């Protein structure tokens, strides 16, 4: 079992809710990304999602778009993001999942992209613009490299699609909380909760809710339906406004809330 699966399964068995946090690599610079990752681990994050900045991120809202634009302006490249992963691995074994768009992967070369990141130490890959129908593009490479290609389900997914995606899922299933893009504040998870229920009929894999979870309250509401919550835009906003210390306190407060809910 991979580092990622082991971590999430372990949490699930012990009845704790998982906390997955997202950062854009190279925003505002790589040194800050590295420092923030380690700080988030120290505050109790279970999995880190590293976003590789892409020029045209259609699934992202203004906060992550802006972070990607600034990271690219500051000179972020795929090679430097691979180096970042290697740096994190020098001191940390926290599960790392890379999130990026298809063209980042194709542009760098799909075999090389996945092989280089795996060699540097990632544990999974999320590609939000690669639906079930197109997954064949990367599936075999991920299998050969031994990392899961994380599937996504959304409130608009039909029952057939949910089941099909859930049956194939590895690592965890990324459950998109709302129709729309990342960011914003969203506190009603009933709709995705129903989707998750359908997915659970065919899969025992950990379910993680993401998109629009910005604070403890949102995390707590989402955790009611899922095994883990994913926080992204809110982390970047904290980083922008209050620096690494702000990120620390946000992660800490969500962690405490989630642990308070776990039995």
């Amino acid at each position, binding site marked *: 079992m991979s580092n990622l699966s082991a971590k999430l399964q372990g949490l699930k068995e012990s009845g704790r809710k998982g906390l997955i946090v997202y950062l854009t690599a190279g925003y505002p610079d790589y040194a800050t990304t590295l420092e923030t990752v380690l700080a988030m681990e120290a505050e109790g994050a279970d999995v880190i999602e590293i976003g590789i900045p892409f020029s045209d991120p259609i699934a992202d*809202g203004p906060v992550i778009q802006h972070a990607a634009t600034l990271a690219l302006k500051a000179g972020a490249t795929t090679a430097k993001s691979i180096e970042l992963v290697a740096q994190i691995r020098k001191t940390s074994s926290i599960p790392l999942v890379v999130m990026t768009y298809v063209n980042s992967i194709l542009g760098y070369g799909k075999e090389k992209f996945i092989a280089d990141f795996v060699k540097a130490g990632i544990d999974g890959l999320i590609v939000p613009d690669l639906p079930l129908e197109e997954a064949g593009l990367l599936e075999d490479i991920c299998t050969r490299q031994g990392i899961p290609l994380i599937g996504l389900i959304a409130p608009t997914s039909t029952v057939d699609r949910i089941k099909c995606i859930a049956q194939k899922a590895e690592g965890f299933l990324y459950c998109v909380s709302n*129709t729309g893009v990342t960011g914003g504040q969203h506190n009603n998870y009933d709709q995705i909760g129903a989707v998750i229920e359908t997915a659970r009929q065919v899969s025992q894999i950990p379910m993680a809710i993401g998109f629009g979870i910005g604070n403890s309250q949102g995390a707590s509401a989402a955790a009611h339906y899922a095994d883990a919550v994913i926080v992204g835009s809110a982390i970047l906003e904290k980083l922008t406004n209050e620096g690494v210390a702000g990120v620390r306190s946000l992660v800490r407060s969500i962690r405490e809330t989630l642990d308070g809910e776990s039995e």
Partner: protein
Amino acid sequence: MPDKNGKFGGFGGRFVPETVMPALIELEERYELLKNDTSFQEELHFYLQEYAGRPTTLYFAKNLTAHYGRGKIYLKREDLLHTGAHKINNAIGQALLARRMGKKKIVAETGAGQHGVACATVAALFGLECRVYMGKEDIERQALNVFRMRLLGTEVIPVTSGTGTLKDATSEAIRYWVTNVEDTHYIIGSVVGPHPYPMIVRDFQKIIGEEVKAQVMKCNIEKLKYIVACVGGGSNAMGMFFSFRNDKEIIKIGVEAAGKGITTNEHAASLTKGRPGVLHGAFSYLLQDDDGQIIEPYSISAGLDYPGVGPEHSFFRDNGIVEYKAVTDEEALEAFKRLARIEGIIPALESSHALAYLEEIMPKTQVDETVIVCLSGRGDKDVDMAIKVMGGL
């Protein structure tokens, strides 16, 4: 026809978030039913004919022909359509589609503003609520079209994310659609985007080439040698070429924007200088760097200023069905002025790119050969830009 996953020999597909996949599948299913529905086709035909002004003429450009003194030049006059460009063909078709699907709202992106105006027009006609995303930079250079859209009751939303041009407006329109997919239909403006859009837009534009084919017969044109059209996303070119794709003896030429030159970094020639990748949901030729970041294109013509191109054009390119060339801003401006002076027609700067390529091919033609150029739109919208770059005449 694309395969079941919307691929034209490997190009195309649906590289979109899961959230919109069910909507794309539904759109494809509904469209397949309507495509063969007589009442839908009759309704479409009615509006194209009575409202938009189809068929457009295939005009023998006698003066321009005399100017080159070689083969005959005909112009397919899409510029005569209501709203001034071929974009209305697709807007009418998709608005009728939206109405049949029970969607009350439409969203669109626009570059030059021609597609935005076409959507705003059909939204007014059919009582649909319309939002158009437009890059901040394009809003400045196409003030006339922005006013037209607002006058027609459409909300024009400036896009400042990324580089604030057509590609970012497209991303924003897709994001809006992802968020409001339940009650909104997205009318993409060209043969780009995820399947089934490239196929649907092509089907609504292919009437251009179908009419030309009939007109060629009627005018007794015997030696049709070249068909020329400009290519940004490629909708007028696809509309023009599609019916002729199997006519090997006719040379089809798609003309891209070379901006300040294809050896510079300032152009929009994705088929000439790009490599395949994924943008806005489709795998196709793209201007991109080694990391797959999209390179901001450049062209004097806002409608050609797009870093990608329709996937079926990529397929045509790789299979030698259509040849793709590029002309610079300067060459396009010369053609813009030439047609105005010689034929009394002010062409759109987009169409001027196709006209500019006549300089290359006319000397190679024989007097009994014919060249047809798609005059995709009229140039009124470009007058401000022309004043800026051409100065006083």
